[in-house]
Structures are given as C-alpha cells and as structure tokens.
C-alpha cells in the first residue's frame, strides 16, 4: 500500500492503454487522490481548456489508504476541469470501485483525448483494454453496470459509469459506481460523456500491502475504536445517516427553503432521517431498509431504501420496487426543502433517478427550486416548461422534471444546464443560488456564518465538503463556535480546508473527521507510506494542495470577484429562527481569510506563500 507506483494512461483518441511509473516526487508532495491528481492535471493541461473538449483530461485517482483496512479506506476521486464551474472539479466517491482499482495494481487512471466511438475501459489486474460500448450508449447506469458484469462473466467486477445525463451533457452529471455511489458534483460525468467513455470496469486480484504492516494494523485498529466510541460516527451516522442533520439544521434556522427565500422548512420532519425509520401509513413498512457501508467503512452511514409500491411515482413501475440508495441529507434538502416538497417517497424516487442516470441531486434540486421561483414570478411560463406547473411544493413537477432531465428531453434540457445559466437566460441572475456556477448545498450561510466563507472560497464552486465548519459551528467538533458570529471563522475555514484536502488525498472519507483529529489520521498514513507523514507535514501538504487548486482556478480566469455569494445571502435577512434578521457577513471574513492564506487583497497567493509551499 501507500502507492503501487503505477498509473494507467489511456489515450482515447488513439485507443491506447499504457502503464507508466507514478511520479514519486509528486506523490511525496501531494499524497494521492485529490492532491496528486490535481498536480498531474496542472502539469498536463492548460487551465483555460474547454472542459468538454478532447484536450481536457479526466483522472480517476486513489489515495494511499484506498484498499486498506483503515476505516473508510475505499475512496477515489475524479479530477478534471469542470463544465459547470470552469474551475477545477474534484468529486469524491465511496462504494467499492476505488479499492478494486487499487487491488488491480493501479494508483490512478488518466484519460485523455476523445474516442471516435463509445467505449468502456476494462481493467483486469495488469491488463487494460478499451471495449466497444455502442450498445451501452443511451443506457442508464443501472442497465450498464449489470450488462458489463454479465458480458465479462464476473459478478465481482466493479463498474463506474455514466448514465444518459453524462451522455447528454447535463452540466452537473456525475459518475456512478456500485449503482448508487457517486462522484457527484461539478459535472465530471459530462466530461466523461464528452470523451465517449461510458464506463470503467475493474477486477483486481493482486491486492495491496502497507509499508509497515505491524504499525499499520495497530494504527487502524486504534482508529476504528475511536470511530466506534464516538457519538456521531458510532451512533448518529449509522442510525440516521447524514439525514441526522435534517431536524437539527432546521431548528437552528439554517435550512435553506424554497430557493433560499426562507431558512426553515415546515416539512423538514417529514423528510428527516427519523421519518425514514417510521413505518409508512400506506404499507406499514419504513422507507429505510438498512444502512450500508462503503468499502472498509466501519461507520456505515449509507441509506438503503425502498419506495412505497403504492406511491403514484412507481405504482405502475415495478422496476423501481427494489431497494437502492436512499436520500442522503443533501439530496433530501435539495429535492425537498429547496423545492418545498415534503413527500419522502417522491424524493426517494427522484433520488433513484439521479443515481440511475447519473446526475447530482444537489445541483438538480437547486436548479428546479430556482426554476420554481422564476415560474412563480412569471419569468418562466407554461410555454417554457411545456405545460409543467412549476410551483413550489409540486411533487409532480419535481418527478416529471427528474425524468425529463435524465432523458435530456423538453424543459429537462434547460434544467440540465444548472441554475446559473437558467437564471441568466430568464433575466434574473441574482436568483441563482450558486458560487462560481455551482449550486449551494444544504446549509444557510445566514444561520451558519462560516459556511458563507466556505462557499465563497471553495475551489470547486459552492460546496460543503471543502470545509465543513458546520462541524464546529453546529456540532461542536472539534470545539464549538457560535454559528452567528464571524470572528475567528476565517482561521476556522482555512484549517478545515487544509485538513480536508489531506483527507481527500488519502483515500479516507471526510466523515472520519467527526471523530478523528489529524493525530489519529497521521499514524495510519505514516504506517502505510514511505516518507514523512507527520501531522505538520500533512497539514502543509493540505495547504499546498489548496493553493495549487487556487492557482489553477486563477489561471483558468477566475478572480477575487468570484469569491462571493448571491445577493440574497448578503442582503436579504433570515426571516425566522435563531438567525432572524441576519445576513451573511462575508465582507468581514474574506479579507481576513486572504491575509491568513498569505494571498494578496486580490486573492492571489504571494510569491512568499508559493515559495513556502514549494509551489
């Protein structure tokens, strides 16, 4: 473990696959996965590249702990330039695919160019082959994955693929592995589709070994104990998943509702993690079937649901009666609160479709929410929607648009371009709740101030997973800060950003940080890899990665002007709850953040900073 030292380079234009040595110096400086793949992307592509052109590259990367016994050690990331944001895109996924790639003996796969015809890549240990996928094109993820397994006659093969959304250029199309685990955000699936690459199937039987096995087993056993004994990772997440947050966030008045017009949703309880456990009135069964883990994960927050067979969305569609990935908090929020819908079964159905055809339920739900606001104010008409009555709270509108977006038909085509483009087209760019073109996730920055800075400075556009200060501001991890004040938030955001960059580059899931500090993580990486992986060096690595991403975005044409929030968060005060009367005070936090980062007032890393980070 650590690194195999081997990467696979696939030239889709030429149809060639070849192995090459991993650049070990870069591995020492960027750890793996997010950091290391970003380094490759920066070195090998022009940041000004058109994301959907053959000149863009698409990198699937594992971390040094991917495919190990470290808890959650099964992650991989997809790194490319994103079509939604025109910034660097880095989407992280769990499931089993990443570990399988590692077991096949590869650290990462770099895909370049564009295939003339649809293909899929099959990796069986050392052998990599491009296979024709003409008959898979036009098929969903849920058809593609079993078809490939059957064709290659091995149920143990793991598949990551795009659905019709990725083929049709939905700008927030994701890449889905193991049927419902997603590298979901920023449109990495659209890049894959633009390359005519349908899927990557992997079978790995070579396995992997840590650098210092004894120390590794000790460190990972200790780590698992900490997770098991922690209230969040040991109880809250396994029981309720991320949906544990729905009621909590609603209570503190940070639940963005109806395209962020409001900060509390009266239907929150009905779509919460608790509700998923409740027997339904209709059939007496709970929406939730079980929790499920990703590879190696001892937390097991994943939701496996079954939709009520009598629900109107699936009543005549038995193909949706099986269990599959249920709603996580972000999906429940975007498809639910943000659109004003409190029908858990409908949300589950919409979420199924997002997985089935591979698109991000956050961006999708948020775009529908924006469209609903535009519709209610008359900027979008029935003529535009093809007759869909796009009112907040309309279950039919949501599920119809989910189906249309999956298929790339009708008004679904416009929804597929995201809220920024939609709101611009219909004359109200301010109503797009996005940063750098990417839709917000489920935390209102008026009620959780630090998240405003998080969103504004995130390198991949609005995102909670770049610095989840909710942990501190709401849950008190590692220590409680007041969500309504801005003092100290710049430092908090920066610390979270750097630490998260480390976790995202290691093969671990960011959820470990609810229980693990860097002191818990460092010994696991240290035992797995050669070199110095002390806490200090890891944090320096995290900061280096953050600055590298920043440099890429600046070179791509982004400026400090893009480090901002929509007017609604800066000018329109929260109407209810603990944050009533508050807006987000980004203006206070941002200059402090730049300074702490060692950036100019224009948000550009100074030469001194770059030197310090060896950039």
């Amino acid at each position, binding site marked *: 473990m650590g690194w195999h030292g081997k990467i696979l380079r696939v030239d889709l234009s030429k149809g060639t696959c070849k192995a090459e040595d991993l650049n070990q110096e870069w591995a020492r400086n960027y750890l793996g996965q997010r950091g290391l793949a970003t380094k490759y992307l920066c070195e090998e592509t022009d940041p000004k590249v058109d994301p959907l052109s053959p000149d863009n590259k698409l990198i699937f990367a594992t971390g040094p702990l991917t495919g190990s*016994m470290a808890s959650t050690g099964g992650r991989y990331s997809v790194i490319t330039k994103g079509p939604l944001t025109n910034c660097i895109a880095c989407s992280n996924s769990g499931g*089993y695919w990443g570990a399988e790639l590692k077991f096949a003996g590869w650290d990462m796969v770099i895909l370049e160019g564009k295939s003339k015809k649809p293909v899929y890549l099959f990796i069986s240990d050392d052998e990599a082959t491009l296979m024709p996928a003409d008959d898979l094109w036009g098929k969903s993820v849920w058809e593609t994955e079993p078809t490939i397994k059957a064709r290659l006659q091995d149920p143990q093969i793991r598949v990551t693929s795009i659905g019709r959304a990725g083929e049709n250029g939905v700008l927030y199309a994701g890449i889905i592995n193991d049927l419902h685990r997603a590298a979901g955000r920023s449109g990495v699936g659209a890049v894959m589709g633009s390359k005519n690459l349908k899927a990557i199937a992997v079978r790995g*039987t070579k396995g992997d070994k840590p650098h210092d096995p004894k120390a590794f087993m000790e460190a990972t056993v200790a780590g698992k104990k900490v997770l098991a004994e922690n209230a969040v990772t040991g109880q809250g997440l396994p029981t309720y998943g991320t949906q544990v947050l729905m009621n909590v966030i609603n209570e503190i008045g940070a639940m963005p509702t109806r395209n962020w017009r409001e900060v509390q949703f009266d239907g929150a309880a009905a779509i919460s993690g608790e509700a998923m456990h409740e027997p339904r009135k209709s059939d007496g069964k709970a929406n939730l079937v*079980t929790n*499920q*883990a990703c590879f190696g*994960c001892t937390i*097991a927050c994943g939701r496996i649901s079954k939709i009520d067979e009598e629900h109107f969305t699936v009543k005549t569609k038995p193909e949706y009666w099986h269990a599959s990935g249920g709603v996580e908090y972000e999906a429940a929020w975007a498809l639910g609160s943000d659109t004003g819908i409190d029908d858990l079964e409908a949300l589950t159905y919409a979420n199924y479709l997002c997985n089935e055809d591979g698109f991000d339920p956050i961006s999708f739900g948020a775009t529908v929410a924006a469209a609903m606001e535009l519709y209610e104010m008359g900027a979008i008409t029935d003529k535009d929607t093809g007759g869909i009555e796009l009112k907040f709270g309309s279950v039919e509108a949501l599920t119809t648009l989910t189906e249309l977006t999956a298929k790339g038909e009708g008004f679904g085509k416009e929804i597929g371009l995201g809220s920024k483009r939609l709101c611009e087209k219909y004359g109200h760019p301010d109503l797009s709740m996005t940063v750098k073109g990417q839709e917000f996730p489920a935390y209102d920055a008026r009620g959780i101030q630090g998240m405003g800075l998080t969103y504004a400075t995130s390198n991949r556009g609005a995102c909670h997973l770049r610095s989840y200060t909710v942990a501190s501001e709401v849950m008190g991890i590692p220590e409680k800060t007041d969500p309504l004040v801005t003092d100290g938030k710049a430092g908090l955001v920066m610390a979270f950003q750097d630490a998260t960059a480390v976790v995202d580059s290691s093969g671990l899931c960011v959820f470990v940080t609810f229980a693990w500090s860097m002191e818990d993580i460092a010994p696991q990486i240290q035992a797995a890899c050669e070199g110095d992986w002390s806490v200090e060096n890891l944090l320096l690595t995290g900061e280096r990665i953050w600055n590298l991403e920043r440099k890429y975005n600046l070179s791509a044409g982004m400026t400090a002007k893009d480090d901002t929030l929509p007017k609604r968060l800066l000018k329109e005060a929260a109407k209810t709850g603990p944050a009533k009367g508050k807006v987000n005070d980004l203006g206070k936090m941002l200059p402090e953040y730049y300074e702490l980062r060692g950036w100019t007032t224009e948000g550009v890393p100074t030469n001194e900073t770059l030197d310090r980070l060896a950039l």
Partner: protein
Amino acid sequence: MIRALQIEPVKCTGCLQCEMACSYEKEGVFNPAKSRIKVFNFHEEGRMVPYTCTQCAEAWCLHACPVDAIRLDAETGAKIVVDVLCVGCKVCTIACPFGTINYNASAGVVVKCDLCDGDPECAKACPTEAITYVDADWTGLERMRDWADKTANEQPQA
C-alpha cells in the same frame, strides 16, 4: 465445546473488513479476491450476506479429496487444507455443495476457511458483530443442517 462462526446477515453493512482481515491473515496482503469469507451484496433486497465454510459434519471436501490433503482439526472442528499435500485437482471445489472451497490458481492449491486456529480474524474485524465466533449450539447451525440434509447423498434414517 466446539465453536463456530455465527453469521447474521441483518447486521452486516457490507464494509468487507472481514475479507480484508482474512486475506491479510492468510495471504499477507489486503486482497478480498483471496479471502476465504465473501460478502454477497443482494442489492435489490438491500441485504449483505457474509458467507464462508460452515465446517459441516458431512465434510464433502474432505471425503472427496483423493490425496488426504484435507484434514479435521480435532480442536476446532475445522476442515483444513494441508497445502503441501494438495495437488490442486479441484475435485473438492465441485464436491462442496456450498461453494466455499475454492481454487487459488496463483498458489496451485485450494483454499478454505480454517477458523484461524480457533481465533477467526473475520469475527475480530467485524465492526457490527454480524460475524461472531460462538458455541456451535448457538449458531443456528440447525438451519444449515437442514440444508445439508437436502443435499446429502444419503437419506437420513429414522
């Protein structure tokens, strides 16, 4: 008292820590493909099912072995493959009606669960107690036996 692996699918989350622990103990690498215990994912039912040798009394593998390479460990009740004696003929792999003894082509021998000398790594690694090592009476082995009887090539005598 003979102990046995008790498997409770309802508790399994599909994390595969058991497969990792098994392959690490037996092969010295993290490699689920070489694990003696396998977790099967019944996606449509939403159920993960770990499965390995039940050390059945019928010992199909042991009886089918032409070269005496599968032995009974009197202490644990495990049926153990003696690697140096196994010629790799694979007859046991078709004889075992549970599909839990498999050929490992790279080693040229068959592999199966040997209960790790009475301290099974899979059970220790399982974070949810879906796999536990308990007195054989508690394992619900009766259910397994019913199944074995169905498969058995002799009828049980009254």
